[in-house]
């Protein structure tokens, strides 16, 4: 570990800390229907949308209507994307002449992008036409992110209002999110990336002659535009197979910093938006603090493990001074690879600038465990916020009992109904991750997937299902996932991780919204102080640890001890 390494990490956190408050304030204004500097330009467009679609933007929806609208929207998006992938061979903008995507892969990919997971069982440049990338995947990168934010807004309003069933209007929230937040930010970021050397072209590839005189084909395409929303929308689906480790998708340290920032900036900002919308900025800061503390800890742990390197490699006489460099790009440091790994898994983004499977066992444990902690650190756009609010509800329940009061969060009493739904929601992750990994690890169709034997091969399966169920989308690499078995099972895991979580979450919003919002009394446990922050951190770690300790013991943990015992497979 080096001073420069820590400095890189510190600079990134400082950038996020500086940009999140204005972003959060801006989003709060947009989503509460207040005017911003973008309104003169965008308001006419927004109004036109509503007129064409026949939507009354003033009309609120209760939790059922809101959820049904979201499900309908996502289902249609899935059908359209599936059809587009199956038919890409006969559609325009296919300069490389790629064939149709197979049914199981199309299912997996459509689910993956509609659920904001961006798990990629395919290599982008060799599978997807430009039309599929731009009109299919990139569109979903925008709207699936907007859906996540919209849902978080609905939950936020449940806590903000007293005795109301109105959670806002799904169509309005999605429209505003795309129009005022995601599009402007993406345009600015894409332009910046182009300036820094990321290609943006509709040509298929460039043929170049290398110094040795060999002919080489360099795949290209509209990279910058997809890259911006890939990070901002916590999507993570790369244009190229190796994602942001590719020199065109992440050419230098500057693009690396911008992208890392873009991965976590919006989820952090949304926590602050939450605070503003519920009428107490400190509440948002507390949630952001929980995210920041755990994300820093994970970054530190990954950096420490990677910098320590692999004793077996060291024993064979190979220089390991910078730490474990296997699977890392030399243009990025160990520190910025560790930071990216923690950020992309903490944020349910899933893009990578290094191969997580090549991390040391404990270094690889960090991104794996970050996903298993529930994708709330800071989580995906929107999904991170509603996820951490569920943890906050669980926390105030136990804390409320311990101070001898019926638990309440933000003035809303938490009762049996909310607990039932919260428990239902948190059950999804262990069922999808552990259940499906157990199935894959014990069936032959699953066991052929991993490249490696021993605990590492098992970790590849565990990581894949964690990534899918957590709607993260990053791959541990090493798993041959483009088989009907994995495509279908991972697709189901993604669906469960998204929708089986959202429905109870929205039901909680529906149960909370009509309750009286009590003004804080002296005996109420304050949910904005350090104690609460510490307690939520404890709940997140303990819940994650209790669920996944045995599973992790069989993978990275035992692998770590074996590495130190000099045992290989």
């Amino acid at each position: 570990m080096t001073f420069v390494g820590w400095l890189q990490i510190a600079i990134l956190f400082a950038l996020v800390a500086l940009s999140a408050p204005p972003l959060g304030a801006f989003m709060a204004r947009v989503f509460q229907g207040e005017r911003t500097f973008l309104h003169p330009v965008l308001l006419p467009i927004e109004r036109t949308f509503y007129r064409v679609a026949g939507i009354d933007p003033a009309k609120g929806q209760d939790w059922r209507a809101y959820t049904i609208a979201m499900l309908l929207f996502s289902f249609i998006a899935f059908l359209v994307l599936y059809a587009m992938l199956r038919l890409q061979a006969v559609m325009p903008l296919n300069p490389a002449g790629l064939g149709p995507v197979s049914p199981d892969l199309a299912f997996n990919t459509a689910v993956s992008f509609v659920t904001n997971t961006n798990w990629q069982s395919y290599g982008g440049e060799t599978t997807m036409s430009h039309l599929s990338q731009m009109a299919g995947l990139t569109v979903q990168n925008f709207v699936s992110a907007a859906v996540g934010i919209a849902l978080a807004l609905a939950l936020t309003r449940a806590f903000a209002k007293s005795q109301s069933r109105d959670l806002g209007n799904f169509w309005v929230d999605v429209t505003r999110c795309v129009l005022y937040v995601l599009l402007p930010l993406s345009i600015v970021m894409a332009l910046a990336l182009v300036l820094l050397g990321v290609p943006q072209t509709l040509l298929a590839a460039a043929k170049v002659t290398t110094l040795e005189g060999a002919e080489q084909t360099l795949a290209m395409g509209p990279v910058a535009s997809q890259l911006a929303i890939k990070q901002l929308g916590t999507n993570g689906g790369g244009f190229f197979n190796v994602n942001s480790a590719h020199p065109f998708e992440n050419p230098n340290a500057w693009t690396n910093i911008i992208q890392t920032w873009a991965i976590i900036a919006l989820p952090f900002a949304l926590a602050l938006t939450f605070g503003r919308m519920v009428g107490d900025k400190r509440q948002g800061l507390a949630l952001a603090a929980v995210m920041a503390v755990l994300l820093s800890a994970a970054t530190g742990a990954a950096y420490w493990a990677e910098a320590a390197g692999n004793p077996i490699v060291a024993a064979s006489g190979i220089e390991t001074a910078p730490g474990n460099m296997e699977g890392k790009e030399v243009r990025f440091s160990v520190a910025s690879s560790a930071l990216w790994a923690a950020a992309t898994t903490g944020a349910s983004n899933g893009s990578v600038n290094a191969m997580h499977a090549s991390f040391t066992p404990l270094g690889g444990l960090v991104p794996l465990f970050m996903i298993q902690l529930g994708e709330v650190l800071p989580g995906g756009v929107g999904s991170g916020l509603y996820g951490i609010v569920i943890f906050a509800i669980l926390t105030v329940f136990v804390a409320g009992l311990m101070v001898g009061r019926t638990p309440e969060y933000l003035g809303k009493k938490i009762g049996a109904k909310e607990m039932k739904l919260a428990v239902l929601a948190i059950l999804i992750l262990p069922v999808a991750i552990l259940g499906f990994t157990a199935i894959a690890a014990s069936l032959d169709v699953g066991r052929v997937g991993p490249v490696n034997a021993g605990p590492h091969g098992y970790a590849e399966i565990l990581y894949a299902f964690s990534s899918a169920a957590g709607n993260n989308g990053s791959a541990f690499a090493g798993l041959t996932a483009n088989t009907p078995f994995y495509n279908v099972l991972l697709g189901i895991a993604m669906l469960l991780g998204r929708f089986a979580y959202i429905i109870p979450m929205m039901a909680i919003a529906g149960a909370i919204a009509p309750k009286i919002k009590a003004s804080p009394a002296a005996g109420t446990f304050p949910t904005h102080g350090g104690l609460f922050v510490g307690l939520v951190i404890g709940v997140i770690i303990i819940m994650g640890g209790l669920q996944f300790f045995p599973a992790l013991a069989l993978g990275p943990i035992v692998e770590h001890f074996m590495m130190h015992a000099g045992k290989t497979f």
Partner: protein
Amino acid sequence: MIAKAPKSASLSDAGMIARAARDAVVKLDPRTLARNPVIFVTEVVTIFVTIIALRDLFTGGPAWFSAQVAAWLWFTVLFATFAESVAEGRGKAQAAALRKTRTQTTAKRLPDPKNRSRVEKVGTGELQVGDHVLVETGDLIPSDGEIVEGLASVNESAITGESAPVIREAGGDRSAVTGGTQVISDWIVVRVTAAPGQTFIDRMIALVEGARRQKTPNEIALDVLLAGLTLIFVVAVVTIVGLASWSGAVVSVTTLVALFVTLIPTTIGGLLSAIGIAGMDRLVRFNVIATSGRAVEAAGDVDTLLLDKTGTITFGNRMADELIATGGATPRELAEAALLASLADQTPEGRSIVEFVTDKVGLSAPDMANRSVTFVPFTAQTRLSGSDVEDVRYRKGAVDSLLKIVTGAAPADFTDAVDRIARAGGTPLAVAKGDRLLGVVHLKDIVKPGIKDRFAALRAMGIKTVMITGDNRITAAAIAGEAGVDDFLAEATPEDKLNYIRKAQAGGQLVGMCGDGTNDAPALAQADVGIALQSGTQAAREAANMVDLDSSPTKLIEVVEIGKQMLMTRGALTTFSIANDLAKYFAIIPVLFIATYPELQALNVMGLNPDTAIISAVIFNALIIVALIPLALAGVTYRPLGAAALLRRNLLIYGLGGIVAPFIGIKVVDSLLALFV
């Protein structure tokens, strides 16, 4: 300041323990256990392991290991049911004492309440609501009711424990009587207000026995969380089979069950109902009867407490507090005159003047034996009283009445004093000797000693106190300031009280109300927690959801504490239970995969013997339930600290303690086992 509850049957009572142990076995019936999801699941998997142990016996499997695990799992379930039995057992002793009051089987029913000579003897069980009964000296009052005629002294020690008889009479605020109490003198006609089996004593018995105990809302929510955790551990443990199959490891089902049971929150699951029963029991020992556990729990949430001024905050009678001599009279002159004017006055005000002059001023009561004295009693017309001592007129009374009988205008310092007293919320009482005005007595509502501390304690708990009074604003403000309440409601009508409560509730606040009069009944019913005083009217008692048998208006402090304590005990033990899991993983996981991955022994931080590690964890898990029964029954100590301080304290003890304790406990058990194997 906080009263200590009388001690109940002790845990060391051998007879009771034996009874509880017997009940614990009866409670193993899965149909009754199903109410408690965690322990029910434990019993199911225990039966499963028992079958495995039996199978192993015949197939030559590791029967000894399975049998040991099975035995300790049975103990785990038994200890949980035992905890509940112990909690119930304490209540049963009280219930038996209460039942004795129902031994009388006949009542004197009056077919015509106006005619006391015609009496029908009927069984008390036949009495219906609306029947009238005659109760005479020596009779037990057959049922709850309202006195419609007569006056009697009643011994209520059966329910209040207070042996001094109290007066109960028709009309007014002291007309309610309770079944099971005894008339000591005189007679009364009582209209029955409770259906058979629904009387106060019946409710009390049901309460202490825990027979009809309903789960409280927070208990249900906690049950959901515990069931959810159990489900999560089902997933976490069952999937181990599949996960381990990757490396070809075969894990023993018995070991997995052992891991499962030690992980699920058996500690809190086993003690949950004991905590609830013990909480209600504690309430009864504080002489409060609650209609439901829900009300007790709600008491722990009260944000605002409404208290009637008279009799609650103040003694209820105005008392002399100061003598102000005016118009050139000396203080001694005034004191003597006030004393003589009050000597024969038996009103509380009069007595307080005598007391004040003799105690504070230091005059002794003059010898009246040889003097001719005529007493002039107070009447509503004259609004003054006094005495004529050998032709000298001593009078005291309302200022305007006195001014009529004295000569000349009131001196300036007299009117000043009167104004000052009125501004301070007091009552000025003028005193005259002959036709000369001597000064003023300042009568004021005296705030009960110590009440300010009680309100401070409530404030520390986060509860706002509001005084309700019929007095004008000035008087109310003065007393409110002196008593240290946070707010007051002056010139309050029953509607005002109701509106005040509704407004607070609309803001999401939980309101507690303490009252005794019939005019308090609507407010008591509207309040989330209504406490009626046992001495109050039947209407108030029915509208309230708790009745305080001691008629102590600040009893709510204890009720709040008990409510909070119940929640805190549940929260603390839940935290403890979950925190325990860390050590259990470290004990069991290394052994679970020992054949495939001996490297995982690095996780065996406790240095347990692989042969006994699992059984040690199971034994610890079972014993901790027994070890915590006393805590479940006594409850976690409540201190009126802020919420954050309270949480920090409990987290330290039950969170951190919950992580550390099993590491030590399991190691100790394992070391002890090493002595035997």
